[in-house]
C-alpha cells in the first residue's frame, strides 16, 4: 500500500470513501442490468448508468484523493470526464441504430411477423 495515505485528513477520506462506494455500486448495477434484462432495447439502458454516474463518481473521487495526497491541484481527470461525456452518446446512438437497421433488415428478409425484438416504427398520432 502506498505511503502518505495515513496522513489524509478525515474531511478528505470521508467523501472519497462515499463516492467510491456509490460509484462502484452503480457500476455493478449497470452490468447487472446488462445481464438481467430480457431484450436488447432494454439492455442498452443498463450501461448508460455505468458510464454517467459510475464514471463520474470514481473520477471525482480520484481528483479529490490525488489533490489531497500530493497537496497540489491534480485535475487532469477532467480530460477523461470530458472525453467520456462527449463520446458515450455517440456510441449509444451508433449501437442503437445498428440494432434497428439489422432488425429491419432481418424482418425484410424473413417476412416474418415482428417479434418483440424488432423496431416498430412509431405511428403518427
Amino acid at each position, binding site marked *: *500500500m*502506498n*505511503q*502518505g*495515505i*495515513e496522513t*489524509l485528513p*478525515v474531511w478528505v*477520506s*470521508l467523501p*472519497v*470513501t462515499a463516492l*467510491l*462506494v456509490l*460509484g*462502484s*455500486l452503480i*457500476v*455493478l448495477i*449497470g*452490468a*447487472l442490468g*446488462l*445481464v438481467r434484462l430480457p431484450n*436488447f432495447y432494454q*439492455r*442498452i439502458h*443498463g*450501461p448508460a448508468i*455505468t*458510464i454517467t454516474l*459510475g*464514471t463520474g463518481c*470514481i*473520477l471525482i*473521487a*480520484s481528483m479529490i*484523493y*490525488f489533490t489531497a*495526497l500530493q497537496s497540489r491541484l*491534480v485535475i*487532469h*481527470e477532467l*480530460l*477523461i470526464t470530458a*472525453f*467520456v461525456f462527449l*463520446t458515450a452518446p*455517440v*456510441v449509444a446512438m*451508433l*449501437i442503437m*441504430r*445498428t*440494432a434497428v*437497421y*439489422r432488425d429491419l*433488415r432481418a424482418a425484410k428478409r424473413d417476412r416474418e411477423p415482428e417479434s418483440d*425484438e424488432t423496431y416498430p416504427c412509431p405511428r403518427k398520432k
Partner: protein
Amino acid sequence: MMTLLFLAIDFTLLCTVLAMLLCMVRLLRGPAAQDRVLALDTLWMCAMLLALALGIRFGSLIYFEAAMLIALTGFVSTVALAKFLMRGEVIE
C-alpha cells in the same frame, strides 16, 4: 477512518471486476451481434474504471495515462464494430 478508506478501495476493485465478469457473460452469451458489441463497450468502460481504482490504491499517477488510452481505444473500436455491423455485412 483510514481502514474504511482501504476497505472502500478494495470494494471498488471487487465491484469493477464483478461487473467485468457480468459483461463477459453477456459477451459470450449474447444472442445477437449488437449485444456483444454493447457488452464489449461496457467492458472497456469497466477496464478504464479498474485502472483508475488501481491508481487510487497504489497512489500513483501513472495509471491515469493507462485509463485515458483505454478510453480512447475503446471508443474507436466500438465505433468501428458498430459501423461494420451496420453497413458491412456480407449476407444482405
